Structures are given as C-alpha cells and as structure tokens.
C-alpha cells in the first residue's frame, strides 16, 4: 500500500463525479471508453483517494485522452510510451498512486516492448487497456488484437491474416502480478475489479473490452457476449495460463493474482552530499 492509500491521506467525502474534470470527452456516442471513465472515477471514490495523490498517464489514441477528463494529475504523452512515463514517475515518487491507461494499439503495437518489460519489472502501478481491436483515433485500421478475418481494416482490406495478440497470456508469461478482464459495457461490474487492481502490489493489468461501434458495428454485440468468469481467482500461473488460453475472451473477472514483490530500488542515502563523492577521484 502506498502512502496515498493510507487513511490519513484519503478523502472519504468524495464521490465519483468529484474525480471528473469539466472537459468534455471527444469520444463518439456509444464508445466503451465512457464506461471506463465512469468505472475509474467510481473506483477512485471507493478507494477514497485524494485526487492530488493520483496520476493518470497515457499515450496517444481516443482512449488515451482519458487523463484530461479526470480531476487527478495527468500526463498525456506520446504514442506508445505511457508505461515508460508511468514507470519513471512511480520509481521517483513511490508515494503516488500511478495509473496508466490507453488503447490496444498504443500498448501492444507501438508500445509492445514496454508492455513486456513493464510486466517483468513489476512496478507497483495499474495498467488499464481499452481494447477495441482497432485504431480509433486514426479512423479504423487493424490493431494487434483485430480478428484475422476482420475485413474492414483500412490498411488491411480482406483481413490481417495474423494471429491476434493475446494481452492476458502475454502479460502473464511476462510476469504481470494481477490480471483481470472487464468490459466498458458494464461499468459497475468493473469497479471492484479496478479497485482491487489499484490496491494489489506490483504491476496490475486490466484488460477492458471497450467497443468502438463507429468503426466496427459488430462490437455492439459485446454487451450481450460478456459474462462473469466461472473460475475463482488463482495465484497459480499455470492454471491461469490454461484458462486464458482456452477461454473465448469474454469471461470477466480477476483471472490471476500473483504474489511477486513489486520492483523496489533500494537507495539509502549514505553520504551527505556530492562533495563526499570526490575522494574517489584523488590521484
């Protein structure tokens, strides 16, 4: 538990809308990201976090616009690098609650390498990926999670013919310490899961099915397809892997909760100031 979660620093009186800024989202009607924004503000209220102690970091994309809609600190960076900004911030300021958010293109394509290493490094932060299986902001190209036969990707007419990236399996294999799937179509169901992800030490991955009905009308069906996972949360990576490899991608819940210790750079001050380092240069 970081300092911002300690009772003396929390704000019990706040409600979800206190975590919203007055900036109006750019999202299209029906976008799943509205649900994520609602869930996240409800989680922050549930955790009673003081907005001044929370930083939400993002990359570029429709989903990555989310920091501006919150009343917390935020950083809207460049495409694909959200996790790295979050890593630097959390290592430098362990007292804060750091949440990284963005899209599937941002996180798994241009930022794919950082995703792997963020899972491995296990810095205590939460990564919320709003997956719409396409690039929304650039108006409808295929993303790493697009179905191979999705015909309407504007740069891949006829389909990508590539195996979709499996964020949860890759995340698990790379060492993510908490793995969950939620849906933007069921904001209330996502709240306790996002709260638990923020509370859980280490790197928590929350994969959100967040439909983009502007560029893929079929995703209107997601609302009906999602269901709660019937398996209990496990700390056994083998079990979790088998489950994740065989489920159809619509089971919601906390699917893995590991117990690795979070990344911690020990740096005890042992000298008073820079002058104390000079002796090593004496001839």
């Amino acid at each position, binding site marked *: 538990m970081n300092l911002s979660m300690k009772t003396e620093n929390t704000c019990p009186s706040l409600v979800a809308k206190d975590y919203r800024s007055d900036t109006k989202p750019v999202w299209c009607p029906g976008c799943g990201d509205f649900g994520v924004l609602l869930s996240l503000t409800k989680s922050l209220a549930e955790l009673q976090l003081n907005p001044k102690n929370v930083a939400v970091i993002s990359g570029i994309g429709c989903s990555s616009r989310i920091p501006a809609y919150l009343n917390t600190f935020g950083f*809207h960076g460049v495409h694909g690098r959200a996790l790295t*900004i979050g890593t630097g911030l959390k*290592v*430098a300021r362990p007292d804060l609650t750091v949440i990284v958010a963005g899209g599937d293109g941002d996180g798994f394509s241009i930022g794919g390498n*950082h995703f792997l290493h963020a899972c491995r490094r296990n810095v205590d932060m939460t990564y919320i990926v709003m997956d719409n299986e396409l690039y929304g902001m650039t108006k409808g190209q295929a993303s790493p999670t697009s179905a191979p036969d999705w015909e309407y990707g504007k740069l891949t007419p006829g389909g990508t013919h590539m195996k979709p990236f499996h964020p949860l399996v890759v995340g698990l294999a790379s060492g993510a310490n908490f793995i969950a799937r939620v849906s933007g179509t069921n904001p209330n169901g996502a709240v306790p899961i996002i709260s638990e992800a923020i509370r859980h030490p280490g790197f928590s991955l929350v994969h959100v099915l967040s439909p983009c009905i502007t560029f893929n009308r079929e995703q209107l069906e997601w609302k009906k397809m999602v269901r709660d996972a019937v398996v209990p949360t496990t700390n056994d990576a083998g079990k979790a892997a088998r489950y994740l490899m065989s489920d159809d991608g619509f089971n919601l819940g906390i699917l893995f909760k590991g117990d690795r210790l979070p990344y911690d750079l020990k740096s005890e001050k042992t*000298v008073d100031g820079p002058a104390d*380092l000079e002796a090593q240069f004496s001839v």
Partner: protein
Amino acid sequence: MTEQSISITMTGSGGSGVMTAGNMLLDAAGRSGLFGIMTRSAGPQIRGGEAAAMLRLSNKPILSHKDQFDILLGIDWKNADLFASEIVLDNNSITIGETGIPQAFTESAGRHYELSVAEIAKQIPDGRANMVALGVAAKLISIPLSAIKEVLTKSLLKQKGEGAVRSSLEAVEAGMAAASAIPSIPAPTADPEAAANNWSITGNEACGMGAIRGGIRFVAAYPITPATEVLEWLATNLPKLGGKLVQAEDELASINQAIGASFGGVPSLTATSGPGIALMTESLGLSVASETPIVVIDVMRGGPSTGIPAKSEQSDLNIAVFGLHGDAPHVVTAPLTIADCLMTTQWSVYLAEKLQTPTIVLSDQALGQTRAVIPGVPDAGYEPERAIAVNPDKTYQRYADTENGVSPMSLPGTESGQYTADGLEHTQSGRPSSKAEDHHRQMNKRLRKIKGFDFGDNWAEASGDDDAEIAVLTWGSSFGAISQAVEELRQSGQKLRLIGVRLISPAQPERMKKLLNNVKKVLVIEQNHSGQFYHYLKAYYDLDAEIKSIAIPGPLPILPSQVRQYLRDWSQI
C-alpha cells in the same frame, strides 16, 4: 614554469594487459605530481584483440596529445601496425620491443632498442609482461618506484592478494633494470606535494559527477558506446545520495522514464550516443511541449547509423539542434574539456530546470573515454531552480502565459494543483486545443523563456590576443588540440584569438559580435564531414569577418600540427 611533456604509447595484443599498464602508469605519474591524459585505442573485439594505451604526461595540465609520440613500447608487435595512422613517430622518437617491429614504425622512428618484455617476464615467477613494460616505461620517464608501488598495492592487494603485488613489483623492477641500458629521455618533473589536489577522472565520470552536483536524482539508462560509463558511474554513485537509476528496455523508454520522473519533481537525466539520440527525438519534443525538464547527454561517436562506435566525431550537432519536429526551442550545450564536463553538465541541469525544457549535452568519445589527471574541479554551485507552484488555487494554470515565459509547475501531491501535462497543443490551463491563438501563444511563450534568458559568460571560452585579426572558432573536444596549436603559434609571435563555444543553442550573436571585434578572418574548425558548426554559425550569427570552414571527420583526432598548418596557410592568404 615552462611546459615539459613526454608522450608514450604502449601496444599489445589480446590479453597482454596493455590498458592495465597504461592506467597504472598514468596513476603513478599522477601520484608523483604530474598531469596527463591517457587515450585508448582498440580493435573491434570486445575482449582481447590489439590495443594501444596512449599517454602524454606533463608538469602542467594538458588538453590534448602532441603531434608525435616520443616512445613506442611494444609488449608485443602482433597487429601493432593497425595503429600506424594513430601513432605518429618522428626521428626523435624511439621504439622499444622484441624483434619484428612493424615497418611502419622502423621507417619513422629515429632509434630502436631491442628488449623483449615477455622474455624478462618469463624469468620471474608469475611475472607478467605488461608489468615489465610498466617498469621500462617508468624508468625511461623517471617515475619513481615508490609511486608505482602505491598504485600496484591500491589496485591489486584487495582483489588479488599480496602474492600478486609482490610478483608485479618484481616484474616492474626487472623492467626498470632492463631499461637502464637505454639512454634516459628528458622527462617532466613535478612536485609530489602538488598531487594532493589532483584528480584522475574520465570525461564520462566527469559528466556523471556534474549531473549529481547539478541535482540529478533520477537516471534512466540504456547502454551504448561510448556513453555507457556515464551511466555505470551513476549506477553506483547516485544511490549514495538517495537517487535512483533504472535500466530501461530501450532509449524510447529511458527518455520517457526521465520525463515521468521529472513530472514528479525529481531532476532527471539519461545519457546516450547517436543511435540513441535518434530514437529519443520524438520525446525530446514531448519534453519541449509539456515543458518537463530533462537532461540528455549525447556522447558523440562516428555516424551515421552504427557508424564507428568507439571513435570520436562531432557530427550530432545537427540532430541535437534541428532534429526535433515542429518549432521546438530547447537548449544544446557542449563541454570543451574533460574538466569542463563537470561544469557544463552541472550548468545544463540548471538550465533545463530553470527553463523547463530539454537540455542536450553534446560530449564526445574523445572527452568521455579519455582519462586525465587534472587539478580537482570545484563545484560550480548551480542547483535546480525549477519554478514550482506554491499553494495553487482554482485559478492555477500550468501553462500560464507569464512575462518571462516560465510557468510555475505544480508537482503531484500539491493541493489543488492538479493538471494534465500534454504534448498536444494546449490552452494555458493545459486543455488540448488546436486554435491558432492558443498555438501561437504557447509557441511564443516556449521561445521567449529561452530567447529572453541571460545565459551569462558561460556561453563560450575566449582566450588569446585582444587585438588579433584572426580568430579560431570551435566547440567540443577539438578545443584541446586547437588550444595547443594556438598557444604554440602565439608563442612564436602570431596574434590569434581562440573561441570555444559551450552554448550551442540558442545562438548568442550579440555576445559573439563583441568577441570578434577587430577580427577580420575566422577559421571554424570541427570534427565532422559537412561543417555542421560552420553552417550553423553562418545561419544564426551575423559575422562580418571572412569565414572559412575546416571540417575534418573522425575517427582520428585532430592534431595540433594540422591546426597550425591551416592557420599558417590561412594567415598568408
């Protein structure tokens, strides 16, 4: 006290320990009160392979090698001819070593002394040829045995035990004995007492120390030659001050980690070389637009692409100044000497923090990987002075259009200070905006804070004759050889002015004008192929004088003799 110096190169093949011997010779010379530099040259192999340790020792602090080496000492001659273009000898030079000296050297050197350090080493239990060579070199240039003994004890006792110290010492003494057959060579002498204030330091270590003095407490690291030692030195020293260093997965990560940490209020840095700076350019722009200060040290090497990793070149000026897309005002500095790596890096941290913008420090391999014995460098006193928002209220605007362009920054954890930092163009409060008025206001503000800032006297180092009609303009490590050449010519009566520019960007045309008062001819010397600094001067400075470019690409260092030649030719025209 007139300057006396001696130059010696030791060569050897893989595993011969030539670098160890060179470092020990430099350290022993340092202990005996001398100043000096040691550069290293090696083949492409990571371990083993031919190598040369090149030293120049002097009774005064020095910035560069001389034109020739006085002594070439071969631990063996295998592949030593690969260094023929770097190790220049003349008929006053001597070579020492076993039979089979490469022809390149027999042709140029005056005398040759046959002496096999390997054979001598064989006579000593656990004797090593490099330690015999150390003894030979020490004897020839009159470094006392006591200084060698101190260095051996310091570097071997803990790791390898008393036995190793004893056998090494025996080998050194055998080398000294063997060298007594060689006529002694006039060598500089010094006062051992003076050594107490001297430092042995590389440019890369100096950048690391300058960063820490400047207040850097977060570093993100991705290894690359020849910048790695900046990061490795920080990895062990930064934590002692409570700072943190993270090894990142690539340079895209390292620069953004630095941005993230700085957003959190901690002065942050990363160091890299050409290929890394190329990867970082997008996020340098993010640092500009979001006004999040960071320092990026680029220890330049031969380019483009992978280029020549372990050799120096000053060819990243263009990317550092112009590499960012959009109009992106930022600061670029360049240290002139190894000692100056301390001040320039410390100052650069100050500038980044003060102006809330990225500062790129253009060091180079010749500074970074050369070890020098120099007078200890005092702390320049620069500390981070970031404008922080204190007690912000509801009206707080992160990107407020202030008079000097610097807007107080609210740090996470500050009551009512919440805002979203953004690389998208934004309003004063930070809300994304594509309106012309917001774009223009923010661009003006970002330019004003840098243009309007008084950079003071640090911007350049000027020396020489006030009434000279010829000036030499340079930057970076070339300053060393050029200073040497200019001093030599001035001693022979020529009037010259030398200007080493430390603040590359923003340009300081008014200040330059004052320095070039009376000057009719300007020679611009730099180590790259296209004259990047020359073209930059032509574009951003208003120079009345006749101006000529001397651009000599790496990998070989610019020599004082070349500079003297150019200056003679130029002054006769």
